[in-house]
């Protein structure tokens, strides 16, 4: 089967509007999570990772005079514009496009017209802006969307539907989602602490990102990083509670390893979902142990970005690509002391380490799970 490479990417987040800026901030262990006072989102102060509106407007004005776009649309259009600017050889017209979002412009439910609250409106906006002759496909699969979109892009290329696929992900930190997670009593009163004994819940975040997948090795300019295996499996257990046995995640990891023709001891790093809710992190620890991955250095990037929903697994996969290129591991921010029942190897401090293969996982409401093996190819 064809190899599918992640050849270029961009991240628009509170940690910067380029992947480089994001990586620099991760390396400094800077977090985008701050105390937020914004009455449009919540009546009281809360911790979350929001993109500064003025900073976004300034970045937007450089590429467009038209301010008639929603915040999310600006984030996503900016992300893709930067990717195209930095990669003139990418032909967006010929590429397949998968958009990953859970709630899109959900804030538009508040107004008089809810036209933009329909997820396909984002697809049309991107189509029109970049003058595409085909409509991008929107994937909305809860918190695994960003990772599953990469898997879908890879499969489309391997089925020879396209030579190139661009995955664009994005979600906002909205009153809609924050109020929902508060109603679940799942929001942390301080910046989230994945896998830590003192964790109490999630911090939400907002971000957009995009990644260019290609089967053409000539597009690879840095180290060749490919998606060597991918799988998704449902827990078939509960719609909001993670499986007690980590069933779907375990199946996903096992199948992804099998496709990549790897054993668990060949994985150098896990960039986990790690939302910092008590049940999620516990479930992940169980699944990693079942898969024999308990000693592999692991982190969650939620301590840096918060949970960015449809963007999260995409961003974390992009960061994994750069960790493979730079041979470095980032500390799992917020972590102090192991707080899950099974032993796992949480990265307490940044490290430089030769990396060849990273496992990216994500799990979400509806019992869905995804695993990706991101591999550095020795050319």
């Amino acid at each position: 089967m064809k190899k599918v490479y992640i050849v270029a990417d961009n991240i628009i987040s509170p940690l910067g509007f380029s992947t480089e800026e994001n990586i620099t901030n991760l390396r400094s262990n800077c977090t985008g999570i701050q105390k937020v006072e914004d009455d449009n989102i919540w009546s009281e102060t809360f911790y979350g990772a929001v993109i500064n509106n003025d900073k976004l407007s300034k970045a937007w004005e450089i590429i467009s005079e038209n301010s008639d776009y929603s915040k999310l649309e600006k984030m996503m259009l900016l992300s893709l514009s930067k990717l195209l600017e930095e990669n003139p050889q990418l032909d967006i017209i010929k590429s397949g496009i998968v958009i990953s979002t859970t709630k899109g412009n959900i804030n538009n439910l508040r107004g008089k017209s809810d036209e933009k609250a329909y997820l396909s409106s984002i697809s049309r906006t991107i189509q029109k802006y970049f003058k595409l002759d085909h409509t991008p496909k929107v994937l909305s699969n809860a918190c695994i969307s960003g990772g599953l979109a990469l898997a879908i892009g890879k499969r489309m290329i391997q089925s020879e539907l396209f030579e190139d696929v661009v995955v664009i992900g994005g979600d906002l930190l909205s009153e809609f989602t924050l109020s929902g997670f508060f109603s679940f009593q799942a929001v942390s009163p301080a910046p989230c602490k994945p896998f830590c004994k003192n964790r109490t819940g999630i911090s939400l975040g907002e971000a957009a990102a995009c990644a260019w997948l290609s089967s053409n090795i000539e597009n690879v300019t840095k180290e060749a990083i490919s998606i060597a295996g991918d799988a998704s499996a449902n827990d078939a257990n509960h719609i909001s509670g993670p499986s007690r046995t980590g069933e779907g995640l375990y199946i996903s990891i096992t199948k992804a390893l099998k496709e990549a023709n790897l054993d668990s001891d060949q994985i150098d790093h896990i960039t986990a979902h790690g939302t910092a809710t008590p049940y999620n992190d516990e479930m992940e620890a169980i699944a990693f142990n079942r898969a024999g991955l308990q000693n592999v250095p692991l982190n969650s990037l939620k301590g840096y970005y918060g949970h960015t929903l449809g963007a999260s697994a995409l961003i974390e996969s992009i960061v994994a690509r750069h960790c493979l290129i730079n041979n470095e591991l980032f500390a799992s921010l917020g972590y102090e002391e192991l707080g899950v029942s099974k032993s796992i190897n949480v990265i307490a401090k940044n490290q430089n380490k030769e990396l060849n293969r990273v496992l990216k996982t994500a799990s979400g409401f509806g019992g869905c799970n995804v695993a990706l093996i991101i591999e550095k190819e020795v050319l």
Partner: protein
Amino acid sequence: MIREKYYISDFCVIRDKKVFKNGTEVYADSEALSVKDFAKGIYKFLDLKYPKFHKMDELCKLGFLASEVLLKDKEKVDQDTALVLSNQASSLDTDRKHQLSIQDRENFYPSPAVFVYTLPNIIMGEISIKNKMKSENAFFVTDNFDADFITLYSEVLMNTGKATNVICGWVDLDNDKYDVFLAFLSKKGNKELTKEELNKLYKQ
């Protein structure tokens, strides 16, 4: 990569207060006053004993009932049976209920039982739980039923070995307007899977 012929072995339509299986009407309730009542009628007709059904939102109920009709007396599903669903309105029907509960700060009552249904892929979670399907799921949002893309992606799953069978289709609910179509794709059957055939069955 293996490219095989695939078939549409069964299909189900729920539309205009009627339920069809493989093109034949199996249930109708012209008296139903709401989606909720209509769904309850189908549940009774199918003689289901599944208390979880009553907790579902209306979108999930419709998708779940269509899957029950589709799989009745027939298909064996397992870890290799993928779900590929799509719609236009995502979970907006329930999103609006959640929005209503947070619209007014003086009267603020968001509920986890509602919020959990503000994602369209929950339908696939419900179908997976009922049938113990620990399989591939993907939910796409498109303006109309995109037979071309759904056929292509289902074939991709089977060609790349991610699934041996696929339950694919369209489960849409928006302001009381609903439209449901599910098809079971496998390596056996009489109707060969093509985008034209899938679209024809959807439009029956």
